């Protein structure tokens, strides 16, 4: 067989092919060389290209839209009326479409992949390639649950040495194996207790105290089965084997931690409801952060997580306000009517790991007292784990009566300086969390009355100001702020579109987009691609945050498929910006 086989079989999606299918394709491939500047195809490609060396730029209407390098494939999907040019001397393996189609007809997985590429189904593609369905813990394999290498010894090991080994590895059990790694018993903390009670010398052999025969399960069995064995046998450790040989050990704890996060959100939620002081709330908050990280690592997506979490944060804010109010009124007497409002991602119900505080107050007229009160709430929120906003957008600074707020908004909307436009983008996502919600309704009603074409244009122009980096060069970009260049543009553009259509009561970006489609202001296609792109970017950001890296993404560390999807997602952001520019006539600036 020809040497390219080794190269090609490692490339997605060719790794989905059987040996025969790979052999077939390899026997049908040619190797084409292109000089720098040479056109590889123009119009609609009739072949699939696999880049072996060099660089290729793909142009549409003269604009560079994608770039390919070693190991990339192109020539499938939306390449109609485009032009591929070698940007350096380039060698490609090429396979005629007919041959690809033959494999497509035979291999369902491969077909699925090609389908998804053709349809630009990002989400599906990532699921397919990362080999995970939106995870169902019950269907996980036991092998997925193993976190440590197994600790083992032979039957002649002394109890002392076995205990030492357990201690040094920080485990609660040691597997006793034969020379060929077949497990014959397990020695656990429980057995160690038996030894302490009945044993005579530390030099006794571990085989005298181990539990034998040992309960084991093959590595590819579902986790749920392991869970049932542990439960029905009332044991804490289960040995995992691979074709009969020791492969690992899982404990009840390991399994519970797989199932737990789902349930623990609701448990913590209930605990929060009963919390009576700030310390308690703080510790619950710490635990929810861990739980969220856990869930995100396990592949729960942004939309699911944010809806799970946002009501938790609402309750947390409510609780902190209640507790503060109780002690405040005791000391300073009754507060007047007011409403506590969250802004930004919290208002949009898109907050996952606690972002900074963004809040304001509308009150009935008597400000001083309430401002003092707000300051304490802001401090208390910080205490329980929600950092203060560096820009100072907090109730202690933004505490006004309904009439004052109306004046403020009117002022912002009549003199549209860059500063005032900034204020508008910050203060247009509002959601009442606690208190007299009518105040907010009144203010929002007022805002929507006052919004005019001029305001919309300025907001639109602000929303499209930050363009994502040029896609072709994404691999040349080392670091990249996901929030600034990916998430904000979508949020801000959506807000302007919603504002134009007077969609008053919806703050959530996804819901706003769906409403826009419902009233015929946006097409289904745009909705689908923007939602996919938004979710992808949010998920990427969440993973980045969980890894402790905030909003700044290191593009080079991304897997190839994520790089590919990122390019696509950013392309969608650009297109969305274009749509907004066109709709509000801000193509050439203001």
């Amino acid at each position, binding site marked *: *067989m*020809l040497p*390219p086989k080794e190269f090609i079989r490692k490339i997605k999606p060719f790794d989905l092919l059987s040996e025969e299918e790979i052999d077939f394709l390899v*026997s049908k491939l*040619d190797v084409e*060389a292109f000089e720098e500047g040479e056109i590889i195809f123009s119009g609609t490609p009739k072949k699939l290209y696999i880049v072996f060396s060099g660089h290729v730029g793909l142009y549409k209407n003269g604009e560079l839209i994608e770039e390919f390098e070693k190991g990339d494939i192109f020539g499938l999907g939306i390449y109609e009326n485009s032009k591929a040019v070698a940007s350096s*001397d380039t060698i490609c393996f090429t396979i005629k479409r007919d041959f690809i189609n033959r494999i497509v007809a035979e291999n369902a997985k491969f077909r699925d992949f090609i389908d998804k590429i053709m349809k630009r189904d990002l989400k599906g593609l990532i699921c397919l390639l990362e080999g995970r369905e939106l995870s169902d813990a019950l269907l996980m394999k036991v092998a997925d649950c193993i976190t440590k290498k197994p600790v083992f010894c032979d039957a002649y090991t002394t109890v002392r040495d076995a205990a030492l080994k357990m201690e040094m590895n920080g485990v609660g059990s040691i597997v006793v194996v034969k020379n060929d790694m077949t497990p014959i018993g397990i020695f656990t903390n429980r057995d160690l207790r038996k030894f302490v009670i009945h044993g005579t010398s530390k030099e006794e052999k571990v085989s005298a105290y181990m539990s034998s025969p040992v309960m084991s399960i093959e590595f590819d069995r579902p986790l749920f089965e392991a869970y049932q064995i542990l439960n029905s046998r009332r044991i804490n450790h289960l040995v995992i084997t691979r074709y009969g040989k020791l492969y690992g050990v899982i404990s009840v704890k390991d399994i519970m931690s797989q199932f737990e996060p789902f349930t623990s959100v609701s448990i913590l939620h209930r605990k929060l409801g009963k919390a009576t002081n700030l310390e308690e709330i703080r510790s619950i908050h710490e635990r929810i952060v861990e739980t969220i990280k856990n869930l995100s690592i396990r592949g729960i997506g942004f939309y699911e997580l944010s809806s799970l979490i946002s009501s938790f944060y609402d309750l947390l804010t409510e609780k902190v306000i209640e507790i503060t109010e109780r002690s405040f009124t005791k000391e300073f007497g009754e507060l007047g009517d007011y409403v506590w409002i969250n802004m930004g991602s919290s208002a949009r119900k898109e907050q996952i790991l606690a972002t900074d505080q963004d809040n304001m107050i509308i009150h009935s007229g008597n400000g001083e007292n309430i401002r003092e009160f707000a300051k304490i709430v802001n401090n208390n929120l910080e205490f329980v784990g929600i950092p203060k906003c560096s820009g100072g957008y907090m109730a202690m600074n933004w505490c006004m009566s309904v009439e004052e707020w109306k004046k403020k908004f009117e002022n912002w909307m009549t003199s549209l300086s860059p500063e005032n436009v900034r204020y508008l983008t910050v203060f247009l996502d509002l959601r009442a969390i606690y208190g007299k919600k009518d105040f907010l309704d009144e203010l929002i009603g007022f805002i929507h009355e006052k919004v005019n074409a001029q305001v919309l244009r300025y907001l639109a122009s602000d929303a499209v100001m930050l363009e994502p980096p040029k896609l072709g060069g994404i691999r040349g970009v080392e670091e990249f702020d996901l929030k600034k260049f990916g998430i904000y543009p979508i949020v801000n553009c959506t807000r302007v579109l919603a504002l134009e259509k007077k969609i008053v009561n919806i703050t959530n970006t996804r819901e706003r987009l769906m409403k826009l489609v419902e009233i015929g202001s946006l097409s289904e296609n745009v909705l689908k691609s923007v939602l996919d792109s938004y979710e992808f970017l949010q998920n990427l950001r969440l993973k980045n945050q969980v890894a402790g890296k905030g909003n700044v993404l290191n593009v080079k560390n991304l897997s190839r498929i994520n790089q590919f999807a990122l390019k696509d997602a950013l392309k969608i952001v650009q297109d969305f910006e274009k749509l907004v520019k066109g709709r509000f006539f801000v193509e050439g600036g203001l």
Partner: protein
Amino acid sequence: MNIREARFSSLDLETTGLNPQKDEIIAIGIVPLEGLKILSSNSFYSLVKPKKVKIKTLKIHGISQEKLEKAPCFDEIYPKIRNILEGSILVGFCVELDYSFLKNASRNFNAEKIDVVKVDRALSRFLGEKYLESPDLDSLAKKYGLKTPFRHNALADAFITAQIFQIQLLRLLKVGINTVEKLMSIINEPEQPIL
């Protein structure tokens, strides 16, 4: 003739030894090129049953004696080989030797030939780089950034040789050598460094 219009055939033989007078061809691999394009889908590969050499005495890595016994003899496949090679320039790694074997086996065979080792030297002289003194195919492939995970098969070697040659052609075009005539003249220049 412009290099882009020329046809080449990358050839590799496996033989029972190194003496074209005594030894025989037992496998042949040909990978055609049209200009810069390797038409590997039109490759040819066949085992060849030797006439004189006793198969049982052969110990060749990767070829089973049984298969060799069932293989066609050279005369049977020669018309096809000739057809493929017709009008094309032979390209090979130490191609002279393979050429002599072909000539001996067929008697009436004639072709122009290009040795990738010679092209490498000529290119290196042009670019003022060091060249490999007497490379094997693996080290030459490595020099051109090619991996050779699967070797010792006439077709695989012919393919690797074609890939080396393809990269050489790209580089030759860069330095203005764009016709077969120019190429032939630089590879046959006396091997003295240009000072």
